[in-house]
Each structure stands twice: as C-alpha cells, then as structure tokens.
C-alpha cells in the first residue's frame, strides 16, 4: 500500500476493482465504511461477481474477467478528453512533459522493438526519453510537442471509447460512464480517490500492467501522496509484505535489491548499471545509494568474510540466468529436473495452478520436506483420497519428511502488515506436541549443514560455512537479536563527513537511519528499508502509542513503518511545487517557510526548501512519476488490453495479437490453453470471507460457516444448462475437470461481450481433501500454468471452462 489501512478513512471515493476487500480483508474494509459514514465517501465496486463488497457499494458494475486494462484505459481516455485531470500536479510531478524518442511506436498490438522469434521486446532502446547533451531528459513544459509522454498516452488510449470498453469488458456503457464521472470528481485538489486491489489484478498475464493503469489514473487525478489517495495493494498473508521485503524470492535480495545475473560476472559489472544518475537537473535518484545498501547487507550476511578485496563476497551469491519462480519450479519438477523441495508453510499442491502438473512434479522428486503447523495436501499428495486424489502410493517414490511448526500465538517476533507497519507480537503458549518454531528449525538445519561442510568439504562450502550465525544462542536465536541485525549497526566508529572530528555513531551502535549506511564496509545491515526499526532508543516495532495527533490516522508512534517511519509514500506530492498544500482539506505535509511539516515523515530532509528540493518520486532518476514507463516493463511502456491466455474472443483491438505477446509459455504447456468453441464460459477464482486460503478448512468453526466447495453461476447459464441450485455439476477446462455443487445466483449479472451473451462462473479456492470442510476436488485442476509477463503471477483469475450436470463424487463427501 502506498497509503495505509487507516488512511482510507480520509478518502472521498473508494474504487474496489481487482479485489474484494469486504470479503478478503474485512477489518481493513472497516475504513471504507468509516469513510462512507463519516466522510460522505462513495464506494464503487467493479467485479465479475456482485460480491460482499458490492453489497455495501453505491455503484456496482460487472466486468468480464481479464479485461481490466480496457476498462481503465477507457477511464484514462475519459479523463484526458474531458480535461478532468489535475493539470498542475500532472505537469509538476509526472513525466507528462518529457519527450519520448522518435523511434517509439505502437502498431497492431505491438510496441517498437518486438522480436517475434524470441517473443520479447528485444530492443527497448526507443522506450525512453530524448536526452540533451548533458544526458538530461528533454521536456516541453508547454506540452505542445506531440512526443510528450502525455500526448502519446492520449493517442494510445484514444481507441478505448466507451463503446469499445463495453464491447471488450461487458460493462454496460451507461454504468461505465457513471463510474468515469464519479472518478473524475476527484481530479480537483480537495478530493481524493483510493484504489484498493489484490490478486484480482495481479493474477493475470497482464497483472503488473493492470496496477500500472491505476497508478496512471491516480497520477492524472493528482491522488498520489495525498491523504485518502494512493494505489493500495491489499496483501494476502499476515506477513507476506515482510517476507517479500525480505526477498524469499528467486531473483531478489532483502530491501528490493536485485540478485546478480549471469551477465554480471564481476562486482563492477553488477554495480555499473546501478549508478542511477539523475535524469533531470537537481534530482536525487535515491537508488544512487544502492551500493551502500548492498555492501551493508553483504556484511550482515557474511561478516568479516565480506571484504573490499573479495568484492564484499560477491561470488557467495548465486547468479540467475532466469527467474525460478513457482511456475518455473513446477515446470522443472514435472520435467524431472529437480530432486529436493522444501515447503515451509506453503501448500503448493493447491497453491500452484494446474494441479495435475504439480502432482506429476511432486511425484518425480526424490525428497520433500514439509514444514507446517497443519496437515496439508502437499505433505499427503501420495495418499489416495478417492476421486479427489486418485493416486497409488506404491507408485510414488518421493521420500517425505514432515516437520511440525509452531504457529500463531506460539512465538514472538515482528511482522509487517499491508500498510508497511512493522509490529511486534508476543508468545502466549507453547505449540502442541514436539512442534518447533521456524527459527529453531531453520537454525538447526543451517548449523547441521554448516558442520557437514566444515568437516567434509564439498561443493563451494564458503557461503554456508562463512554465513554469520553468531547469535547468543545459535540454535535458538532471540528474535530481538535478529531484528537488530536486520536494522544494522556501525562496525567501526563513523565520523561525520561534514566534521571529521565528530563521531556520528560508535562501533557497535545501532543505525538510526539508512542514511548512515556506507559502501566501505563500516556498516552492517540486513535490510536497509527496515533500518530505524531497532535503534539505540529501543525496539520501535514494540511501540504501542495509539495517539493520532492530526486525526488523519497516521499513528506515528505505533510500530515502525518502512521506510523511515513514513506512513504515506510520496507525501511531498500532497503540496504544490511551492510547498503549499494543494487544498486545506487535504493538507498533509507542507513547507511552512523554514521546514517541511505535518503529521508524517516527509519524503526527504525536512529543511530543504521547495525551490531547492527534488521531486517527490525520489526513487526515479527523473524525480517524477511515470505516465510513460520507459523500459521498466517487459510488455510495454503503456498498458494495453490483451486477452487472457484462455482467450474468450479475438482481441477486437488487434486480432492478430490477441494475447500478451511476451508471456512465457513453457513447451510442456503449449497445448494447455482452452478455446471458446470447447470451453465457452469465462471462469474466475476467488476467496470467501469465511476462509483463509487452505488453512481454515482445518478449523471447525470456519468449516461450519462455509462447509463445502461450490461454483457460482448466473441464472441465464443455469437455465441454459438445466442446472438447479444445489445440483452437482462438472466444470471442465483444457487442464482437467472437477465436481462441485451449483450456486445459482442473481449476483452474476448477464453481460454482453463483443455483441454476444457472455456467461461467467466463479470458484472459491479454499477446498481440498484434507480438513474438516467437506472433501472436494481442488479447483486448481482447472487453472492454466502461465503467468504475468512482468512477474509471472499465475493467471488464476480468467480462464475458460464448460459446465454440465453430473452425479455426486464417487466417494461421498463425508468429513
């Protein structure tokens, strides 16, 4: 979230699209109801289904799954052509005026530089600004140049007329225009809109571009950095924000640094493209500090083994040739290219698409370790559960070790919520039986492996043997000690660069801010964005001062919000270029004549005057936000509508390039996509308020509240297929078939797409063959093993199926 859960109460308009906050995040959704009740806010919900969020919305519009970009590009067209944008904000804080290179073009569904053989934009050199002799980007403040980013954007979205939006999305034109008008009301300085999204936007082959589209809308409206504004990702698991910050990811390292790749043979190669020189005069380009963060991290990981002479143990890190994300790993497993697998609290059997492929992969592993508080389908994939998991244990040679982990309330430590607030929690009781905490399990494994390599040697033992593990109790590290290591500290006395006689920090003292991190090995810190969470003043994540002096829901002394305890990102943009609030009503951070003030931590040093200060978007080299993404996205600098891989229609905009042209499709999956002649119904997957992922089917009360898998379908489809409410039906896709009970509802509205009736059905994800809820076919039997072009998030939200009446499952669904 760029803003926070509490900040939602400051908004005037909530757009829930690509998510279902009332159902997936009810206690966060409370701030929507607060905004409605106390701020006169309106709520718009755009969703294929009339959800529980829609139940309390002022306006609901249906949309065909997988067509969000068409809708959002249509909104952009409306705002630009009706001049409902925040002109001054857009000029000052976005790259609207930047001039784009001549070679950049978009024709028939493809941007410049496409290589058809490699299915990639091999040459993205034109996706950039014209530079002057000093290497600075050229701008035309008058916005007259047709190559200005905003003019190119206008031309790009011109095709998304309300008629085209209706044709692609199925959203009735009148509803679409009503929503456009409501959104447009927030282009004025004293009104804001907030966007709340989740996996409904990410789980598409155009996932990252869905979110980018909304970021662009919020920039056009001047809603970024504003109270009640922002683009707010409603994260899934309780600490998925923290775990992502900490880079339990294939190609990242903690704090959104990037792991080296094969082209970066040396440390110098690695650092060269990370100089991040400013592209506009006077800008800061904060990533210029990259090396300070990287070196400090290497010192935290490898201690004295990371020296300037060995390039800070650069070779201790693996280099990647490609992304080994979940889809790639499953593909490798299924191809017999993997031997071992750890599943630590992740039920991959249900979580990854195309269950049949996952099963094939798991059965080809030599061994698997499952670390979990609960029984999972993954740990028991070899067990026969009738038609829900029809396997022969004898034929499965995978050795499995299942380790009981303690859970919630049974351990202490910090976690980071969706608002980026790091908060401590305390232990209430021991876990059951012999269960152990993840910290103990991981520590034990590491120490055993370290001992084996120290004793026997083996393949490149250094990073294992030299990894720092110097905790007071190495087998049971105290979480507070670990958090200190993450925060970082001075390894030597740090002299003040401005006054060498003065010492900023003594050796061993905790860093109060990442501004003190150094690239010379004198500081250590595991994750720079968390620096400040544990200082000499104590553990900031334990702070529980619930005061809110401004009344804006900032709570500056509750926990610690990364970065630098900033609660709303880009808050400099809440004031105009001269530092004056855009409006009294939306006053947040402003220049009072001598310093930046307000209830939040400003984006940069509070004493730098507005005329000397850099732009609010300090992580970008140009200091502005980007309407034109440059080469940052693999599938284009502007968002474009592409059909899901299970394409329901030929893309009306460019039928020859119907789907996202740069999507990664594994050879094994080339024939796994469905076509509408065989599978004429659009399906989507979703979560229910009563359940969390695949956990709560193991909780009696949650099983009571939603006991059994069902499939939701509209009355038109049910009638056509002669299906009554509660009937058993079979749902089939190109990947496989499952059975579920029909839930025939008015809440899936009949829509028309490309001139024809389009039927949509929806399946909740939560059921499987383990737990107290009724046994069910895992629904990921149906979903395609393909992901977003940018980050490979699986396309769970839009796929094609057929449905017909059937008999109950062979094994009666008895708990």
């Amino acid at each position, binding site marked *: 979230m760029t803003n926070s859960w509490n900040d939602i109460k400051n908004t005037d308009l909530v757009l829930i699209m690509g998510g279902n906050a009332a159902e997936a995040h009810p206690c966060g959704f409370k701030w929507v109801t607060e905004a409605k009740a106390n701020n006169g806010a309106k709520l718009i919900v755009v969703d294929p289904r009339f959800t529980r969020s829609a139940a309390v919305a002022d306006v609901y519009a249906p949309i065909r799954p997988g067509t969000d970009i068409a809708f959002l590009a249509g909104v952009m067209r409306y705002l630009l052509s009706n001049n409902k944008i925040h002109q001054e904000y857009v000029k000052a804080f976005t790259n609207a005026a930047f001039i784009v290179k001549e070679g950049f073009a978009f024709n028939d569904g493809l941007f410049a530089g496409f290589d058809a053989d490699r299915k990639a934009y091999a040459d993205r050199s034109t996706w950039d600004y014209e530079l002057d002799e000093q290497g600075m980007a050229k701008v035309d403040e008058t916005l007259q140049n047709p190559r200005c980013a905003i003019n190119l954007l206008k031309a790009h979205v011109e095709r998304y007329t309300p008629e085209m939006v209706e044709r692609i999305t199925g959203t009735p034109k009148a509803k679409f225009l009503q929503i456009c008008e409501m959104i447009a009301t927030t282009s004025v300085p004293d009104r804001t809109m907030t966007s709340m999204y989740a996996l409904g936007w990410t789980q598409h082959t155009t996932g990252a571009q869905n979110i980018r589209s909304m970021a662009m809308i919020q920039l056009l409206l001047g809603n970024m950095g504003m109270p009640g504004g922002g683009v707010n990702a409603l994260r899934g698991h309780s600490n998925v924000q923290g775990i992502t910050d900490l880079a339990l990811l294939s190609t990242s390292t903690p704090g959104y640094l990037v792991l080296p790749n094969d082209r970066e043979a040396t440390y110098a190669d690695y650092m060269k493209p990370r100089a991040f020189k400013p592209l506009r005069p006077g800008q800061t380009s904060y990533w210029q500090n990259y090396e300070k963060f990287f070196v400090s991290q290497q010192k935290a990981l490898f201690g004295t083994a990371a020296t300037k002479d060995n390039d800070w143990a650069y070779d201790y890190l693996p280099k990647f040739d490609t992304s080994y994300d979940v889809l790639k790993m499953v593909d490798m497993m299924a191809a017999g290219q993997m031997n071992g697998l750890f599943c630590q609290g992740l039920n991959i059997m249900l979580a990854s698409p195309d269950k049949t492929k996952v099963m094939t992969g798991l059965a080809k592993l030599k061994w698997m370790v499952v670390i*979990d508080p609960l029984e999972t389908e993954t740990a028991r994939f070899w067990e026969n559960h009738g038609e829900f998991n029809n396997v022969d244990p004898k034929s499965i040679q995978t050795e499995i070790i299942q380790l009981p982990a303690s859970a919630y309330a049974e351990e202490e430590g910090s976690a980071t919520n969706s608002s980026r607030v790091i908060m401590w929690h305390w232990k209430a009781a021991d876990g059951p039986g012999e269960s152990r905490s993840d910290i103990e399990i991981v520590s034990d494994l590491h120490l055993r492996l370290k001992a084996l390599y120290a004793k026997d040697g083996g393949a490149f033992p250094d990073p294992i043997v030299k990894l720092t593990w110097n905790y007071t109790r190495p087998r049971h590290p105290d*979480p507070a000690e670990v958090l200190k290591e993450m925060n970082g500290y001075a390894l030597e006395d740090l002299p003040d660069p401005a006054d060498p006689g003065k010492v900023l920090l003594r050796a061993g003292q905790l860093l109060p801010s990442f501004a003190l991190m150094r690239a010379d090995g004198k500081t250590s810190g595991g994750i720079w964005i968390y620096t400040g969470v544990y200082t000499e003043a104590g553990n900031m994540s334990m702070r529980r001062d619930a005061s809110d002096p401004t009344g804006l829901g900032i709570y500056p002394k509750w926990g610690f919000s990364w970065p630098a305890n900033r609660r709303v990102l880009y808050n400099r943009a809440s004031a105009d270029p001269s530092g004056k609030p855009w409006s009294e009503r939306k006053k947040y951070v402003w220049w009072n004549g001598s310093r930046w003030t307000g209830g939040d931590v400003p984006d940069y040093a509070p004493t730098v005057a507005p005329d000397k200060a850099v732009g609010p978007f300090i992580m970008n080299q140009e200091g502005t936000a980007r309407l034109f993404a440059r080469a940052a996205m693999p599938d284009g600098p502007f968002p474009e509508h592409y059909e899901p891989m299970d394409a329901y229609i030929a893309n009306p905009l460019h039928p020859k390039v119907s789907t996202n042209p740069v999507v990664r499709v594994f050879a094994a999956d080339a024939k796994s996509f469905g076509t509408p002649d065989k599978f004429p119904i659009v399906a989507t997957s979703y979560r229910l308020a009563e359940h969390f992922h695949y956990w709560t089917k193991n909780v009696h009360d949650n099983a009571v509240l939603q006991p059994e898998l069902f499939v939701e379908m509209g009355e038109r489809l049910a009638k056509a297929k002669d299906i009554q409410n509660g009937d058993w039906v079979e749902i089939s896709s190109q990947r496989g078939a499952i059975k579920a009970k029909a839930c025939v509802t008015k809440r899936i509205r009949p829509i028309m797409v490309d001139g024809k009736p389009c039927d949509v059905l929806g399946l909740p994800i939560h059921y499987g063959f383990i737990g107290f809820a009724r046994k069910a076919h895992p629904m990921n039997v149906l979903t395609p093993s393909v992901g977003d072009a940018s980050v490979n998030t699986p396309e769970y939200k839009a796929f094609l199926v057929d449905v017909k009446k059937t008999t109950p499952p062979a094994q009666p669904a008895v708990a």
Partner: protein
Amino acid sequence: MAVTRRQFMTVSAAGLAASSVGALGFVGAGDALAAGVRPFKLERATETRNACPYCAVACGVLVYSLGDKSKNAKSSIIHVEGDPDHPVNRGTLCARGAASLGYIHSANRLKYPMHRKPGTDKFERVSWDFAMERIAKLMKEDRDKNFIAKNRDGVTVNRWLSTGFFGGSSLSNEAGYLTYKFVRSTGILGFEDQARI
C-alpha cells in the same frame, strides 16, 4: 389474530402438564434456583498481545490463556479477541480471526516429525534428530552433485537448481530473514513465497 380450534386444542393439552410449574406456587423454589449470568470466563486469564495469522491487515489480537505462567501452570490458549488499542482493527476481527482459537487447537495440527519412505502408504513418527540429520544429508548429497559453479561461458554463477524452497508468508520477519540467509547461502535459486499465489 383469530385462534383456530386446532391451536386451542394444542395449547390446552400442553398447558396441562407444563403450566402447573409456576401456577402451583413454587415461585419461591424457582427463586432459589434462579441462576445468575454465566461467569465471565476471562477474569484472571493471562492476556498476551499477538497478531492474527491470516491476512495482511494483521489485526492485533488479545490471546487469553489458562494459568498465570506460574511454574506449575501449563499455559493453554482459551480465547482470542481483537485488541481494542490496535489502530487498524480497533478490537474487531473477521470470521477467520474470531475463530482462530480453532486453528491453534485444530485436530489437524502437526505434533511430531513424520517420515514417509518411498512407495509406502503411511507416515511414521521419527525423532527430530533423525529428521534433521536426514534432511541435512539429503541436501548435501544433492548440492554436492548438482551445484553449478560456472555457467557454459565460464562465468562464476555458484547456483544450485535441483532443490527448491517455498517459503511461508506468515512467518515472523526474523524467521523470514533467517530462512533467507539459510536458503541463499546454499545457492538455491528456486525460491518463492506466497506473494504471487
């Protein structure tokens, strides 16, 4: 509302037996039997502040446990409700959080390390020591055999691709950071959390 004959008959018949209780003058006995409200079950339970394990609203919760943490009282969690001080949830919880006591005490919680040998149809209980020794051995065997020190172009890449690690996303930051260190130090690149799925 008119009273039908059938209703009248039913009332009459049932009234015969049941109405006698009060009417026969046992009000005093009833008084003696009158119970107060159910005793408040948390009165001296130990309160611990934690966070809901499910979604990333990460609501503050108050976890109530049996016993006062004295030497001879084994803590057992008996109730969970929202933390009213927490700025985000202000004491509220959803259907998952409000039922999370059932997760803590789920009959499907794992209690012991278990081992399934290839081709068999059951898990067998093993000791932690056996399990951890076995895992370390399996890891080292596979890593030593399949570790890639250099790619085809001779670039040092130091990666291990034949083993992967799916990490949890409800771990604490500290557990996550230690997991990162442990996994990254081995050269594993197949590394994924729950952010995408």
